[in-house]
């Protein structure tokens, strides 16, 4: 049953990769991609750890949560892309003016 932890760790990896790209890349489209990768990492962890059930059936609650999360993610992505295009029309660049260092 330990492939569960393998996928959970991959989830952690995706989360961190996404976070790195989010901070480092100035282009907004890349930032949006990065947020999506981070989200996938979170969902992967959520669902993978739900497979630690003793029987043959997984825990359905994290599955429902992941589906909710996926729908939220596409909503946020759609809004972010539209906003990015507005920013580009207004400023000529699809980037934020100065990078806030975190």
């Amino acid at each position, binding site marked *: 049953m330990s492939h569960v*932890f393998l996928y959970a760790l991959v989830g952690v990896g995706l989360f961190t990769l996404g976070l790195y790209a989010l901070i480092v890349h100035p282009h907004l489209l890349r930032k949006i991609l990065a947020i999506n990768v981070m989200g996938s990492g979170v969902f992967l962890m959520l669902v993978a750890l739900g497979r630690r059930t003793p029987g043959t059936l997984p825990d359905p609650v994290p599955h429902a949560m992941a*589906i909710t999360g996926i729908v939220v993610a596409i909503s946020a992505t759609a809004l972010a892309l539209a906003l990015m295009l507005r920013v580009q029309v207004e400023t000529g660049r699809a980037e934020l003016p100065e990078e806030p260092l975190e």
Partner: protein
Amino acid sequence: MQQSQPLKKTINPKPMTEGVKKQLLFRLLLVALLSLLATGLGYAVLSLPSSAPGLSELVAENLETSGVSNPVTAVLLNFRAYDTLLELGVLLLALLGVWSFGAVPERRESFPGPVLDTLSRLLVPLLILVAGYLLWVGAHAPGGAFQAGSVLGAAGVLLLLAGWRPGARFVGLPLRITLVAGLGVFVIVSAVLILVGGRLLEYPPSFAATLILLIEAAATLSIGITLAALFIGGRPEAGPNN
């Protein structure tokens, strides 16, 4: 936080200027911090017990009274239906946001080739069938409103790619009604249930299956149309109101 220092903005192509060095240092620091984060998270994950039932048993026990036999659908539309209600709100909200940015960006010049045209003629009816099937099958097998809705949305995207645009008559109130149908039916069902003396989203067991199907059907339609509308990327223009 470094708002007061504008030198970050100057990205010089020259190699190894002061800015580049600074950036390199920043990245190294970032990588170190993130590796620390990943290690910590990994450790936390691995420290969890290797076997845990979660809520699977509780879901299984209550599945019979939920009105559906697919546990995921039961969670989404009964046990945690309130999450789903708010989530339909999130989807609609995204569209409201996109529409508030302005009207549809000007039409793209590229005309659909014959391939896309034929493809959409073949695929769209098929996708609608698949959506209907997924909606229906969701009660007892993998599928459900979100999957069905997104397949419907894909059909819409294909139609849009092939150059189809909604007629002016459809763009006003009728379009808005289909967009809010999912959330609206959810809210109405909730209100009616409260009025007849139940709790928020407490379906009487004998009606559960019907109510879930009703909500899912409306949600599928709304999700599909909303996703296609998000693809257009702006408010369709046909007279300001109605």
